[in-house]
């Protein structure tokens, strides 16, 4: 257990070393927040004040919180594992006395723990100063939101891990990882809440773990869902956590069976 903790600390430290890069990311998220919030305000306004369960206040809050979630949930490219598979360094990871999946999960949770405040607060602050941000005034949404965020990070990790494992079978993992990023961005509700989708696309999204990565924590933290609704969202997240964990594990077992380490 202590060894797993060390991976989490290493993940935290690794990302805390690049402060300027964190600031740059927060800046970019803030600029995109301005653009996205403008679009949803116009859309909700044209729709007559409410659009598929979102009024202007909750749509603006949604636009900003999703920008704040980008870094902690790591919705964009993550190819650490795939690169180590390609170079063969993954053999070193496998030789360690800690399970490979646990090593990477611990490091990823450490990463999320570091980036959550410096990457989430600046866009939320810019949102509050420009558009006004209607955040809940009671503690419950934040407590449930923290749990939901941790579940979201772990589900996201399981899926990214799975996409990265493709490197065991393909010479070049880039296409798969890029496709994964695109699909997850669309179906997670990053661009617009899943309830805004045309019916068919919404059904497809709900059959995937992606809304559990962005839409669920966003709706819980902003208080758009009441306590009962939030608990239901958490329940769906736990379900996807279980499914993605098992899938990632099965894929890892098959991948390591393929691995041939030469020399030594």
């Amino acid at each position, binding site marked *: 257990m202590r060894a797993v903790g060390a991976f989490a600390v290493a993940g935290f430290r690794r990302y805390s070393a690049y402060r300027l890069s964190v600031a740059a990311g927060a800046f970019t998220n803030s600029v995109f927040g301005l653009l996205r919030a403008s679009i949803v305000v116009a859309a909700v306004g*044209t729709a007559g004040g409410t659009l598929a369960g979102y009024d202007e206040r909750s749509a603006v809050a949604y636009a900003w919180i999703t920008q704040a979630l980008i870094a902690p949930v790591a919705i964009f490219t993550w190819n650490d594992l795939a690169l180590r598979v390609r170079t063969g360094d993954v053999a070193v990871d496998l030789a360690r006395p800690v399970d490979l999946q646990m090593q990477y999960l611990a490091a990823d949770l450490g990463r999320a723990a570091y980036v959550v405040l410096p990457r989430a607060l600046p866009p939320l602050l810019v949102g509050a100063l420009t558009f006004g941000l209607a955040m809940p005034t009671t503690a419950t949404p934040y407590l449930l939101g923290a749990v939901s965020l941790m579940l979201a990070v772990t589900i996201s990790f399981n899926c990214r891990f799975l996409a990265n494992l493709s490197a065991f079978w393909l010479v070049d993992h880039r296409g798969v990882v890029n496709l994964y990023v695109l699909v997850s961005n669309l179906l997670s509700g990053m661009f617009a809440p899943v309830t805004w989708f045309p019916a068919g696309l919404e059904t497809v999204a709900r059959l995937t773990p992606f809304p559990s990565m962005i839409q669920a924590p966003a709706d819980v933290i902003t208080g758009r869902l009441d306590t009962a609704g939030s608990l239901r969202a958490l329940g769906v997240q736990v379900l996807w956590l279980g499914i993605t964990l098992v899938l990632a594990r099965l894929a890892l077992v098959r991948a390591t069976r393929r691995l041939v380490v030469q020399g030594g």
Partner: protein
Amino acid sequence: MGETARAYRVLLGSRVRSQTSYRTSFALDVLASLTAGVVEFAEVYVIFHNVPTLGGLDLTAAMLVFGLATLGFALGDLFAGHLDEVPTLIRLGTLDVLLLRPLPVLAQLMTGDVQLRRLGRASVGVAVAAIALARTDVDWTPARLALLAVTPVAGAVLFAALFLAAGAVQFWLVDGGEFTYAFTYGASYAASFSPAVLPLPVRALFSFVVPAAFTAYLPTLAILGHAGPPWLPGWLGWWVPAVAVAGWLVAAGLWRLGLRHYTGAGG
């Protein structure tokens, strides 16, 4: 002169061959680029699935804006997108190698990493713009046709200028290179919908400082004969070629300054 042309031909040819020799990888890369375009269009479509107009544009006009913006960005990205790797070149010292060769550094950089997969996204732009043009009822004049033809080129030059300016700034930023993403990829995003939805200061920023509105929205207004929102009259669309040239000159000036500022990592 013939020697120089041959050098570029060899450079470009080597890039094309290296990318197409691993066919499965190349096909997957093109597919990913194509999907990127489709996903971006899905974002526009999701909004218009709920509302008939956004920022004064109906779906057809919005599709034309999206198509032209995507095509312009994909072409600009093809020739200049890799300039956002300048920080890596500086850190690894690779830039010094380029400085030693008897060709301009910028020309070497632009031809040195042309990514053919980006044509996948460009084809989505062409398709969406074509569907929009088939659905719309434009009073075509020779001037409007000319503007339609010149817009993707001007858009590509403007996006390439943004990448170039972003690359130039890296000579000072180095570690904070991602700051510029807000203005390169941010411009690409801002260009693909109506700036009329933006609050005035943000609209001005993405029109006159970062010329995103000039890459697709303003030419579309000019082609369709729309008046345009405050600060962005539709007739500005006719000025797109001039703005593209001016944008490139400013960016090239910045690049020269940056390169002069560069002192190398020793050795």
